[in-house]
């Protein structure tokens, strides 16, 4: 930033600088947010500051499923109402939110925290594969649902996990890959359409 363009207050400049580091926040958005916070009631800024601090201090990873949680094990892993024989494998904690929103799945989860990406140098040691395999060893799990993203990295991860898990005698399923709701057939790509035709179901 040009020296004659920096705000006269060092504190504001520092806030802008910090906000600017967030994804999707450019210099102008950072400025807008900073001045907005400056005008906001002190109560509100205090709450934001506390929320920011506690997100780092109070959250941890669940030692069972590696979801982000305040308590360990997380509420989902502790919930005795859930089907303990099913584990749904997802790439990131946000994916659990999306799946939970459907209210149709009542099993457990496992967060890998990434997907295998050979050209980025992300291998099996960089995601929570070992922890998953340890979890499956006691024999209580009957089905593993692979819910990694339907892109090349997610598919690679799913194929790899299938190779590891199916010899254990556990049923391995993959989320259906086909046409998304609300789209038009003519825009579908070959891979999606092929899978949609292969995976068609009786009405």
């Amino acid at each position: 930033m040009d020296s004659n363009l920096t705000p006269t207050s060092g504190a504001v400049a520092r806030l802008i600088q910090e906000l600017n580091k967030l994804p999707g926040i450019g210099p102008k958005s950072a400025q807008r947010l900073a001045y907005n916070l400056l005008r906001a009631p002190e109560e509100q800024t205090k709450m934001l500051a506390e929320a920011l601090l506690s997100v780092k201090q109070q959250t941890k990873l669940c030692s069972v499923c590696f979801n982000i949680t305040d308590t360990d094990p997380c509420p989902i892993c502790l919930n005795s109402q859930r089907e303990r024989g099913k584990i749904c494998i997802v790439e990131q904690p946000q994916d659990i939110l999306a799946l939970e929103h459907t209210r149709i799945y009542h099993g457990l989860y496992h967060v890998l925290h990434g997907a295998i990406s050979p050209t980025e140098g992300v291998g099996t040691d960089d995601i929570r594969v070992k922890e998953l395999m340890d979890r499956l060893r006691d024999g209580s799990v009957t089905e593993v649902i692979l819910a990694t993203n339907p892109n090349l990295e997610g598919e690679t991860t799913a194929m790899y996990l299938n190779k590891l898990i199916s010899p254990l005698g556990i049923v391995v399923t993959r989320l259906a890959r086909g046409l998304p709701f609300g789209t038009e057939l003519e825009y579908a790509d070959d891979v999606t359409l092929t899978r949609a035709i292969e995976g068609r179901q009786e009405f």
Partner: protein
Amino acid sequence: MTKPRTYKTEAVIIKKTKLGEAGRILTLYTPHLGKIQAVAKGVRRPRSKMAGHLELLTHSQLSLARGRNLDTVIGAQTINSFMPLKIDLDLTSYALYATELVNQFAADNVEDYPLFQLLVETLQNLSQGGDNELILRYFEIHLLDMAGFRPQLQHCVTCKSTLKEATNLFSPGAGGVLCPGCRQSQFAYPLSENARKVLLLLQNSDYGTVSGLEIDRELSRQLEMLMRNYIRYLLERDVKSTAWMDSLRGQIDDNQIRPYSPTTPAKT
């Protein structure tokens, strides 16, 4: 005259990185524009009409709009999705290796039509099945040729003498074969006469001619290591996807499941 605001090109998608909430920056290898980068907006949303046509290892027809920095993809239609590559763990790893090499060796915005052809041909060959190692060696040696690093395999790089049927040496630094007499202080690997002949044949033939070649496992491994060392020397770094190919192969070779190495804890 100003350039038109939009243009069309074929491209193979060789790399992608996330951008903003739902976008991606794609690295594309095109027939006439060489390696370019472009923004694809909204392709991480499930309802994106272009996402499936813009996945890695896909050969697509694209429409792009010129932007101030990066151009934006405004339309995409698959030409070849190389489906077999995407449903096989090993083939995916080989194909990603090929695209990583293209990304490493190709300069931005420099047309190299033969390299585009080589890339598409290689993805095609991998999809159709064959000796995958041979396909990769053929790819590597021709890629090096096009990138200006054609290894000298006919005669000794230093003394220019014709090579005798003996174990010679391959020197990455010299960019080719050294005869035993020219070993000197230069760093070099032993190169068997069989390996040299195979490389020479690959270098001077099209894929159709060499596709029937049968190479035993030991020689195949030797050729792979030779090329890997040469490429690592040229790039001055490891090719990332080789680690994944090795870990997959480790499973097959040992015929046992090794999901992780116990000495390296997973990153938190």
